[in-house]
């Protein structure tokens, strides 16, 4: 049987199953869980997957959770429909069908690997100081889901120190091309482990999100680079680009699905400005025009960024607004950092081969003109 046909069948079947299960059984369970009358596998699943429920059910009414539960099914339906649509489209569109194909120069991968791990050193070097911070506030330790599943309790100081040293050492080894693949795996594990402690105090933030996604894919790029000679498979770079694009897309979709276009209203924008009290933000908030325009531009940027995957020669159209967007969150909301990893990972959208050729031309051109002076 055709593999693609099995996939279609599986997707349609899961679509039907999820909808039937939800509308005929699980939806009625939401109320039972809310009032604390249910003790089924479903309520236990909610407790595990959605630990904030315990807090949020005291803040919000039942309708909030019914809406949230409906959202799960709506989002699932949308994603399944998009996947089926993409598969059907891939049959007709050459560009989509060959999305995961293609090659890049090995030298391009070399440059990316070196720059990326230099970036990891830059972003992680200060994590050493945070070990003390973790230990200081360890009384508030509440493990994230991954740590709960793995039964990771708050570790002794030396384990955090070893994890830190592993991130730095592995990055250096990869930069100097010494056993890069095992060190890239080791570095990723240490990075995920260490970073998990930042989020094990009841709050997750997104400063390192795209850096984390890239970190997860990097071992594949290193492996592919080690296998190839002059040219290597491009797919790990494409996968990294897709992860970055999806991060923006889901940020935008999350706003639309949660709040609709009302999110881009000046009232909501001003609320967030007032909450963070950044001086430039407070000045901007005085203007009706800017308070109305800026959130709409931000939403448009997030929702359209994925087009970068198909417009290879016009990437600057997305990268320049991307830089402005992140600068905006720093200056208007006091969130993030000027040298944010979100901008740093744009290196994966730069064609280093072309840049190198241009630099070589400029360099040889200057030598040439010097010789003739």
């Amino acid at each position, binding site marked *: 049987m055709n593999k693609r046909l099995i996939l279609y069948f599986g997707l349609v079947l899961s679509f039907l199953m999820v909808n039937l299960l939800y509308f005929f059984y699980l939806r009625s369970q939401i109320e039972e869980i809310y009032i604390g009358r249910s003790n089924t596998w479903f309520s236990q699943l909610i407790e595990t*997957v*959605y630990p*904030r429920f*315990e*807090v*949020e059910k005291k*803040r*919000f009414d039942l309708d909030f959770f019914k809406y*949230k539960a409906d*959202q*799960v099914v709506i*989002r*699932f339906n949308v*994603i399944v429909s998009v996947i089926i649509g993409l598969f059907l489209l891939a049959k007709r569109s050459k560009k989509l069908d060959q999305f*995961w194909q293609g090659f890049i120069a090995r030298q391009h991968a070399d440059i990316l690997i070196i720059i990326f791990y230099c970036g990891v050193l830059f972003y992680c070097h200060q994590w050493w100081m945070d070990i003390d*911070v973790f230990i*200081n*506030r360890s*009384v*508030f330790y509440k493990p*994230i*889901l*991954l740590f709960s599943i793995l039964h990771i309790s708050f570790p002794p100081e030396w384990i955090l120190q070893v994890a830190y040293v592993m991130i730095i050492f592995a990055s250096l080894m990869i930069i100097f091309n010494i056993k890069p693949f095992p060190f890239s795996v080791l570095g990723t594990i240490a990075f*995920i482990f260490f*970073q*998990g402690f930042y*989020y094990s*105090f*009841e*709050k*997750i*933030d*997104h400063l390192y*999100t795209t850096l*984390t*996604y890239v970190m*997860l*894919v990097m071992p*594949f790029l290193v492996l592919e680079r080690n296998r190839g000679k002059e040219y290597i*498979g491009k*797919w*790990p770079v494409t*996968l990294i680009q*897709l*992860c970055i694009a*999806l*991060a923006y897309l*889901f*940020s935008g979709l*999350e*706003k639309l699905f*949660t*709040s*609709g276009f*009302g*999110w881009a*209203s000046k*009232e909501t924008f001003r*609320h*967030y400005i007032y909450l963070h009290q950044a001086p430039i933000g407070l000045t901007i908030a005085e203007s009706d025009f800017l308070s109305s325009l800026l959130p709409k531009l931000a939403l448009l940027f997030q929702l359209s960024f994925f087009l970068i995957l198909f417009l290879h020669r016009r990437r600057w159209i997305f990268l320049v607004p991307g830089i402005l967007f992140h600068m905006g969150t720093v200056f208007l909301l006091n969130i993030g950092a000027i040298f944010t990893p979100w901008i740093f990972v744009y290196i994966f959208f730069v064609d280093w081969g072309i840049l190198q050729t241009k630099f070589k031309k400029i360099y040889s051109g200057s030598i040439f003109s010097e010789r003739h002076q």
Partner: protein
Amino acid sequence: MHIKKWAIAIMTGGLVLPFILQVNIYPFFRFGMFAEAVHREIQTEQFQIYTIDRQGSRKLLQPDEVGISKSNWDYLLRNHYYRNENVVFLKKLRTLMKEPEQFTTLQMIRIIQSDSTIVYNFELK
């Protein structure tokens, strides 16, 4: 070839799942921060801690005084409040204070819009 397919499936699946379930599944993230339009009063809710010393003077405790970032602080306060763990929170907080013996009381305040209420007075002994 199998590695490629698995890597693509796990990464894209990992990105999609938090969006569908609306939860963080670390190392994959949900982007729900700032996604809510503010239309409920409860969304403006904030918590504060005050210290009261032996002379009776009251001072706002800044999170950095106990080595916690502002954003983390807000979540910790709110979550403990809704879990009915105010005393637990304040007890833990005392362990992070440099000179708790200077103070007689830790006071937890809840603010919605411009209304503030005292949630709990914790006597430091």
